[in-house]
């Protein structure tokens, strides 16, 4: 039987400043919400174990750490993403309009194997707020035009639909990984310095 590798999914969250990217992450992972807007200090990526069908996977959700504010996300941020979450604020039309450029930016920078079928998920956040500027229909139409991106309306504040949205994100990310993993399964794993260094017995001492 093939050994089942521990699955780690990298998910990145994009969208204009202030649409609630960090709040959505915190609501999902920590079940907490703060009304105070601040570029969260020390928030990097959050991890959460999720069950998708019969598999338990670790989802690593990466925040932009504010580097999106002046269009300064470097290419390194995008590397190896398994799913890209695009967030807009349903009360702020400009945040919806910019989804196109965030999607394009992602496709250029991350340069996925199969750009047409790369999994995106769109979240229309802040549905608890009035007045609403972007209708469900309008958002759905945009998503359909982009190869049927799944769309969720969420409220990080009320914890509305957040769980469901991230479940879908995990599922899509996993399918992306299953799709590409065969291509690379024979390749040796890169070295991560955060793990305990493997010992090469024969070479462990130089002399």
């Amino acid at each position, binding site marked *: 039987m093939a050994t089942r590798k521990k699955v780690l999914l990298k998910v990145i969250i994009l969208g204009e*400043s202030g649409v609630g990217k960090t709040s959505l992450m*915190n609501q999902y992972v*920590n*079940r*907490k*919400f*703060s*009304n105070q807007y601040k*570029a*969260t*200090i*020390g*928030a*990097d*990526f*959050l*991890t959460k*174990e999720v*069950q998708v069908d019969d598999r*338990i996977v670790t989802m690593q959700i990466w925040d932009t*750490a*504010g*580097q999106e*504010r*002046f*269009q*300064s996300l*470097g*290419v*390194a*941020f995008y*590397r190896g993403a398994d799913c890209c979450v695009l967030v807009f604020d349903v009360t702020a039309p400009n945040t919806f309009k910019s989804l196109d450029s965030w999607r394009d930016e992602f496709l250029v920078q991350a*340069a996925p*194997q*199969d*750009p*047409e079928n790369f999994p995106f998920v769109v979240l229309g956040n802040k549905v608890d707020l009035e007045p609403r500027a972007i209708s469900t229909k309008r958002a759905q139409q945009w998503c359909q035009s982009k190869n049927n991106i799944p769309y969720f309306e969420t409220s990080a504040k009320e*914890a509305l639909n957040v*769980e469901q949205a991230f479940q879908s994100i995990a599922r899509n990310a996993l399918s992306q990984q299953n799709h590409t993993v065969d291509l690379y399964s024979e*390749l*040796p794993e*890169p*070295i*991560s*310095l*955060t793990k305990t*260094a*493997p*010992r*090469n017995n*024969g*070479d*462990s*001492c*130089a*002399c």
Partner: protein
Amino acid sequence: MEGELPSEFDLIVIGTGLTESIIAAAASRIGKNVLHADSNSYYGGLWASFTLDSISKISGSTPQSESDATKECLTFGNNNFSITNIKEEWHVSEGNIEKLNECTIEDDPQQIIENENWTKNKLLALSRKFNIDLLPKLHFARGEFVELLISSNIARYSEFRSVSRVLTWLNNKLEVVPCSRSDVFSSNNVTVVEKRMLMKLLNVCLDSTDQDFAEYENKTFHAFLKDQKLTANLIHYILYAIAMGTEKTSCRDGVERIKRFLNSLGRYGKTPFLYSMYGSGEIPQAFCRLSAVFGATYALSQSLQGVVMDDKNNYKGIMCGNQQINSSKIVIGLDKAPKAFVDHIKPLRLSRGIFITDRSLLESEKEHLSLLLFPPMNDKNPVTILEMGSLTGTCPKGLYLVHMMTDQSNNPYDDLKYYVDTLFTKSAENVNIEGGDVENRPQLLWSFYFSVPVSNDFNFQKDLPNIFVCSGPDSDLDYDPSIKIAKGIFEKMYPDSEFLPRAPDPEEIVIEGDESNENEEILQKDLDEKCKQQNKQNEITEAENNEA
């Protein structure tokens, strides 16, 4: 577009080269309010990596035209520290462009292209699979850089490959240098007697103290090796490959380098070296990410004008577009420094050559990441050569990216010509002309030459209070000198603060916020579920262990 930048910071850092990025990260880490800005649209400055179509557009940072609004400030940028002598050559035909345009979106271009002859358009269609370093760096597995990444927890942003073999040029051909104990004993290139001599010598160097070499105080390492009655082959391996030296290297330096090499063996792979996946340009970005996570403001593509001084000629702030932004201190990368700050520094230059080839210099069953230390030939300087394949994430499958670097004596093209001619062939037709080794040589598909300024001299500081100019890239194989300089500047600015203490892992951070009751309910349910899963997982693991 987004709004304006805030107009007041504790520290402004100009340029996103490695040294600047380390300082930005260290300052943010201790709670300083940092603006990190660059006029480029990419991170890394002279330390960046580029795709194939973008590298030919680099031109270094030339001073910006003195626009009308900026008479009041010292303009950023200088001519001393920019990239010069750029020369690009394609050794393959243009190729058919229409065919590729059709297939790039729908299919993986890689599959279509394989097993065909390479053309310029085929290579450019794969442009984004290339991550071409302006200045590639290797990391000693137990060197200062790796230790800093681990101790600061910045290691989580990068992945690495280990250099899988060290090569040298000996008796007119490429040889694998036996560098670990198992290599030495399995090598066919050294006799049993030589094996013993080599191990003994390496042990002597490793266990030595300065006093042991007192009699060689003013002698070369080469002289020392000769006195040890080693064979010519062994002297070659030790001097040129393991010590990465020349006949002029002093005994003290030679022994130090042997120690540096040996101490890093056996931690991550067969050689002492690591290389960062997707190119060396990832490293400054890792430090910037940490800096952003700790609150720094990041702004690329800024129209950075210059440094503003007050009436008493003290540092005040910068002009960014038409906006004045003030800070108590400023750090400026060498390539962005106003001329007046750096006119006393004479940069050295490295001659660089980058090549795309169709096969490895020394073919083998598996793909290697090779370091070739080419000894000095015909009175030229020794050349450091790195050959990387697709496993490093810097070039497409089936191709190799070869980096050459040497201290500049004339210009990059002439400095490297001998080595290029020795190792490669320029066109497919050459293959049939002569017999022997020629047909196995990799064919050059693309060459790119330039010279890059390096600053091995650490004294940049003029006496300018609150203005700190950092070094640019240097010719060291690793990042040690940059770390020293970054740390030095940080300690001058913030003498009582710790330099890059370990950043907490995400799960260690307590996030403040309101918890509603219904959320708690879900939380409880979720926790129960998780416990169940955990137990199940443990059972499975146990079962697996028992099987094993």
